[in-house]
């Protein structure tokens, strides 16, 4: 019997266990709040959020692959589509859209109009440099690294800073194919 066809994001989102959205938002808010108190420097907090997101992404990718049964994407365009339509939907419950492809197809933007992490959030004046959702950029970077793609993920537009949507730019630096890990003489 051949393996099942890949499932769409909605189907998987409906079938997994879900947590209360407010609990999720408030927990994330508590994490960011604690990081700001502990680290005090906004840049440090951004870096720490990115690192946390990276650690999450490294594990999340296996869950994503197991639940959604997608096979290897042929090119980066398909990867971006899968992340936006299936990945975000499955884990956050919102669909992102993919735009702003550059000429060689290595950079694109994921647009999020709705983001459950930032419900009820307003940035105070003391935290103006903060990328509140930086954990998401870490998650995308970590997950893509586990499928052999080294990327750079940055925020272009941030609703908490007055823009109209969240825009996450994903830039493919290089594909790192599998190498035989053992040395030949061992």
């Amino acid at each position, binding site marked *: 019997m051949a*393996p099942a066809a890949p499932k769409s994001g909605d189907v998987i989102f409906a079938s997994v266990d879900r947590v209360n959205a407010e609990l999720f938002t408030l927990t994330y808010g508590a994490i960011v709040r604690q990081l700001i108190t502990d680290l005090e420097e906004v840049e440090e907090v951004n870096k720490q959020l990115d690192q946390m997101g990276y650690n999450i992404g490294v594990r999340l990718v296996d869950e994503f692959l197991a639940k959604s049964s997608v096979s290897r994407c042929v090119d980066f365009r398909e990867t971006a589509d899968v992340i936006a339509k299936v990945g975000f939907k499955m884990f956050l419950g919102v669909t992102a859209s993919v735009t702003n492809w550059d000429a060689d197809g290595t950079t694109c933007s994921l647009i999020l109009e709705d983001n459950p992490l930032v419900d009820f959030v307003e940035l105070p004046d003391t935290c103006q440099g903060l990328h509140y959702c930086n954990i998401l950029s870490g998650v995308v970077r970590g997950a893509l690294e*586990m499928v*052999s793609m080294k990327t750079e993920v940055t925020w272009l537009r941030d609703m908490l800073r007055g823009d109209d949507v969240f825009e996450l730019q994903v830039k493919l630096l290089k594909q790192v194919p*599998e190498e035989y*890990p053992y040395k030949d003489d*061992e």
Partner: protein
Amino acid sequence: MQFFGGTEISPSPPLPTASGNNGNMMYIFNRNGVCLLYREWNRPLKTLSSQQDHKLMFGLLFSLKSLTAKMDPTSAEKGNLGVPQLPGQGCSFHSFRTNTYKLSFMESPSGIKIILVTHPRTGDLRDSLKYIYNLYVEYVVKNPLYSPGTPIRSELFNKTVDQYVRGLG
């Protein structure tokens, strides 16, 4: 019978049940060749140390994947043999059968390889391997105390996998 020294990964195999245990052994590797799990249920002959055995298995699969991809008659790519490939890309083999055993293989795009060796008359185990991958996600990946890339030491995972394989085919 040779003694398997230093095999912390594989505890003593469970006693065979009355209906007979179908699976012989199972390996799980990650993309860097680290053997995350080795389970053994029915393996009378052991000739290599566990490290050499894991290396042999990983090397075998690596080469087989490369070979099967290059010999693919439907593929348009003209890469040279030995060019490293992205995991899951191109065609990949899923099992081979000899007169004494059948080896079933599954690789996820994140490089996690699951190998199950069973008796030769076993059917297609691709869905079973997918189920084991799901078990891996639930019991291992989601465990915050587990560091990715290190051997798995979860009794619960071992028990669940044992139970599942015992119920196969």
